[in-house]
């Protein structure tokens, strides 16, 4: 049976934790909860997004905060674990967070949305992957997204593939096995067929796959003209050399869900003979021009970040959206009022993205635009091809 001494020891342990948890209630700043994968397999994407978000909020706080109150960011590392995401979101909400931002892999989104729906706390999902629950006609209450809805990401890929290979016949899409990835690939395959590709196939692999040699063999054998890769950071680095070694000499279109120009360049150098394109909703590395681009470049330079990636831009824009909503929020601002403010947002991308960010009560995503880039081997530079694909939030 349980000996009383051991039970007492456990109670003391729990008791010790209580004071540490509730000390944050007294502070007066706006508390924003942020869920991130900082030490899991997708850390390169989501942690970079958090850095961009912090850059923006530091700038806001430096300028005196919002209505005189600073914005505090409570960060929780949830890796890609749905259970941990939901419980951390609940913890942040009960600690006074009036909104939850960020989120990691698409498989963790629904549990967080359900948990926050119970508490009526709004959730703003960051770049790159968003689920289609935020699209019109009936978006999920209190859930918004500034990333790329996977359905739209996929269908845009079909059109971009035609752009990169006007007379290509065979199209293939390869992605790791996650809800967002699978939906994106399905829509890409459909859009490719619509754009005139005669054959289009989908190749999935486990999330933990790191050894891509056999998969590269499989793709090289079917030898598509255009290969769409929807990868996270780190996978591109090992996939490109493997597919080059397997003898593939077609075109690779990398969906900007996780590569980042620095990694794209390094992977491209290790894969000679392959023509590499990429496309993204947000500009990176000083590609675009506009007030927000310069502000982000300057802030990143001061913070010692060597190169601005699309995720920094995504995090920066999310900061702008939340700051704008906090400013318009009816005082004293609480989650419900913040949700009302978020439901009619309109802010200009400032050069980071062509289309403005628009949220309405019936559309929590708004229009989006995607720019096609090409890796120029001579200048070792990822350069814009100038082709922009506009997409409304109405799914065809």
């Amino acid at each position, binding site marked *: 049976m349980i000996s009383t001494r051991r039970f007492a020891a456990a109670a003391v342990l729990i008791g010790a934790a209580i004071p540490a948890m509730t000390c944050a209630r007294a502070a007066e700043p706006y508390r924003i909860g942020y869920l991130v994968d*900082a*030490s*899991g*397999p997708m*850390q*390169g994407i989501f942690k970079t997004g958090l850095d961009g978000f912090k850059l923006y909020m530091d700038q806001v706080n430096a300028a005196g905060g919002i209505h005189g109150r600073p914005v505090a960011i409570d960060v929780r590392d949830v*890796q890609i674990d749905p259970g941990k995401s939901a419980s951390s979101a609940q913890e942040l909400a009960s600690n006074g967070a009036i909104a939850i931002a960020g989120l990691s892999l698409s498989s963790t989104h629904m549990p967080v949305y359900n948990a926050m729906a119970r508490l009526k706390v709004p959730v703003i999902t960051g770049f790159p992957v968003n689920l289609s629950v935020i699209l019109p006609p009936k978006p999920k209450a209190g859930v918004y997204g500034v990333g790329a809805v996977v359905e739209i990401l996929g269908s845009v890929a079909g059109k971009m593939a035609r752009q990169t290979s006007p007379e290509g016949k065979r199209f293939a899409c390869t992605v790791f*096995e996650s809800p967002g990835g699978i939906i994106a690939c399905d829509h890409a395959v459909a859009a490719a067929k619509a754009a005139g590709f005669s054959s289009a196939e989908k*190749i*999935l*692999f*486990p999330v*933990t*796959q*790191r*050894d*891509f*040699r*056999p*998969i590269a*063999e*499989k793709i090289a*054998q079917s030898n598509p003209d255009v290969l769409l890769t929807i990868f996270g*950071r*780190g*996978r591109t*680095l*090992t996939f490109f*050399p493997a597919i080059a*070694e*397997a*003898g593939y000499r077609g075109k690779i279109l990398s969906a900007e869900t996780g590569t980042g120009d620095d990694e794209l360049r*390094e992977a491209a150098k*290790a894969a000679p003979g392959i023509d590499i394109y990429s496309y993204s909703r947000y500009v990176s590395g000083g590609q675009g021009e506009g007030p927000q681009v310069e502000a982000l470049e300057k802030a990143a330079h001061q913070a010692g970040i060597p190169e601005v990636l699309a995720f920094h831009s995504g995090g920066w824009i999310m900061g702008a959206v939340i700051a704008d909503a906090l400013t318009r929020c009816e005082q004293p601002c609480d989650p419900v009022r913040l949700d009302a403010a978020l439901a009619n947002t309109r802010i200009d991308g400032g050069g980071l993205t062509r289309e403005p960010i628009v949220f309405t009560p019936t559309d929590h995503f708004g229009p989006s635009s995607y720019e096609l880039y090409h890796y120029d081997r001579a200048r070792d530079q990822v350069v814009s091809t100038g082709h922009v694909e506009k997409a409304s939030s109405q799914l065809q």
Partner: protein
Amino acid sequence: MNVSLLVSILASASVYAALATAVVLVYRANRVLVFHLAELGVLASYLMVTLSGEAGWSLPASFLAALAVALAVSVLVHVLVDHWGRPFGHFVGTVLTIAVGGILMGLIGMIWSGRTVRMILAEGRTDVFGEPISTNTLVVMGLCCLATVAVHLVVNRSRLGISMRAVANSASLARHRGIQVSRVLLVVWLLSGALGTIAGIGMASLSAVAMEGAVIGVSAIVAAILGGLTSLGGAIIGSILLAFGEQMVIVYVDPRYSQVVPILVLFTILVIRPSGLSGRTESVVRV
């Protein structure tokens, strides 16, 4: 079945063989199934890539440093399993290695926090039967095969190997024959640590230095069990079968089922012939 696929299968098989040999070596000596070797290999590959990358050490130097750390960890595991864990039986020893695996992954997560890095041992390409194969794959294959063959020679030919097999046969009789059983066990753990390191670094340079590299640990145990868990030769046969099956499924069926192959094969083996393909009938209690 072109050359590059064949080379890819052989490379994976050589990594699995190194790891499976380590699993069999330890299991024979003290009936403990080790679950921590892959995590040890990932730790070694992170150490090596950090030293040879940021710290600018040469590849051999950083390899030796990583090997030294891995051997130190192996000594700790030996003390944990063979000395403190002994009164609780070999079963608790097995669960201890699961705990050690968890601790190693935690440490790697804290220090390198899940970064994915590429580590190439040798640049360039060489022609194999007319088809360009990356030298790196050949170097990894060579390294792992060399390590596995060396251990096989030590165990089957040298005096140390004979006392290892004696301890594996019966520790009490070995003590009567004047063999220092705990020293022999230490050597077994060191050899398995070295093999785990080489396999870990090999797989890391074939794919990438990442925390997910630890998934080959289960495949190695499956390969060892395929071979009967008690014979070193069986471990090699098991590794080749496993690598061949896995990669055939990826290329010709569906990459998503690549992790199912080793597990399904293991399941059927366990049901039909619990002692595996070769090797002596393990002391499996007929229920």
